[in-house]
């Protein structure tokens, strides 16, 4: 697998050394406003703020940011389409457009428009966190929430190994395609199935070898590591709080 755009952005982020809690306050604060405030102006404001924070403040490269939001934008569009149409067999309502039992109504369109705003705002708020904080930092941050180490370690190992297995799965698939293994439908099934079983076996093998490799480094049951301290930044915290509060006030204020 290509390294996902968000992962690439997170590791290279200017905010990499910021405290995870600080960044989470900003992103999750905007996320809460995005999903709970009236979509106009609250959702739109939260979305605009999240985009501005990512591109202007954290200086996530525009190209990488655009690649990161491209796929979820398509998902939002598909989901919204489903909300926009109504099933109306009785032909009882005023429709803007209809064909057979499928109708598009004004309330439906309004809801769809709301959902576009909310979905995009929420997604960009999550992207703000994901594009500035590598997964390992988030998992380390979760330790603070008294989540058992065992669970964090399993998740961290999952993160480490998924890139290995994804690369192997990609290579296996391309190699079989090169031997014309994907020219027919049944060939595609055979190839996908065998790639999956092969990756499973290699995954098992990798876990066993990693166990041996770690034993030599003194592994006795805990994958303890240290990471450099990432102190809170008071100016950042104040700025983040102000931004989130301003967005929330703007969002709920009865204009």
């Amino acid at each position, binding site marked *: 697998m290509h390294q996902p755009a968000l992962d690439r952005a997170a590791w290279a982020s200017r905010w990499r050394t910021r405290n995870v809690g600080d960044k989470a306050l900003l992103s999750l604060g905007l996320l809460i406003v995005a999903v709970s405030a009236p979509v106009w102006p609250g959702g739109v404001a939260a979305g605009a703020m999240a985009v501005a924070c990512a591109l202007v403040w954290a200086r996530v490269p525009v190209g990488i940011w655009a690649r990161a939001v491209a796929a979820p934008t398509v998902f939002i569009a598909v989901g919204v389409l489903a909300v926009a149409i109504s099933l109306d067999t009785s032909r009882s309502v005023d429709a803007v457009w209809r064909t057979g039992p499928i109708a598009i109504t004004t309330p439906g369109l309004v809801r769809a428009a709301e959902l576009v705003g909310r979905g995009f705002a929420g997604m960009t708020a999550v992207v703000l966190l994901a594009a500035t904080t590598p997964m390992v930092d988030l998992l380390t941050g979760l330790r603070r929430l008294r989540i058992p180490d065992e669970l964090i370690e399993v998740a961290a190992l999952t993160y480490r190994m998924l890139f290995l297995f994804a690369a192997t799965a990609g290579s296996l698939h391309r190699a079989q395609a090169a031997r014309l293994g994907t020219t027919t439908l049944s060939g595609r099934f*055979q190839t996908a199935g065998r790639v999956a079983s092969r990756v499973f076996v290699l995954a098992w093998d990798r876990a066993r070898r990693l166990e041996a490799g770690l034993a030599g480094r003194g592994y006795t049951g805990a994958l303890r590591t240290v990471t450099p301290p990432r102190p809170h930044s008071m100016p950042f915290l104040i700025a983040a709080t102000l931004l989130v509060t301003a967005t929330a006030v703007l969002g709920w204020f009865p204009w």
Partner: protein
Amino acid sequence: MHIAEGFLPPVQAGLWFAVSAPFVVHGAREVVRISREKPEARLLLGAVGAFTFVLSAIKLPSVTGSSSHPTGTGAGAVLFKPPVMAFLGLVVLLFQSLLLAHGGLTTLGANVFSMAIVGPWAGYAVYRLCQSVRLPQMVGVFFAMAVANLTTYVVTSLQLAIAHPDPVGGFGAAAAKFLGIFALTQIPLALAEGVLGVLLFRGLVAI
């Protein structure tokens, strides 16, 4: 397909977290117990989590050429039992939302419920049922994978219908609409995942 960020009203999003929590906590306890008994099991569980993530990224072959992915949780439920999959499914969904912006954080509870709880349990139940009536193992694997896939999407459709009742026909019409759009197009894909599961397990037996 997961419910995207912002697609659930806050109250419902919270309720789905509450519904999923007991299952995830139960699974997490199981993972902690296994890890403490056998330290090396952590590495194995990490590998299984990574495998599940990769499996869910494999493109399902389809006749139409449209790209879709397996849920992969049916295989995990058969191999590792549903409680473990509840936790690993949570990890996979969290990674999908933060690495790929696929799904969301506020919708995580709802997505965990459909993909990491209902899917694996339904698949596992069907697998056990097939075993108890002495059907060949591969038949059980096929139905486990297909049912896990299909139930995941049915639950997702119902969750969306609750969140977005049709302005004309209410919940019923919305459910019919979402099921029509997702579940019906999903049936061939569920069958495809069943076939993939059989090929996967056949490969494992051979190796």
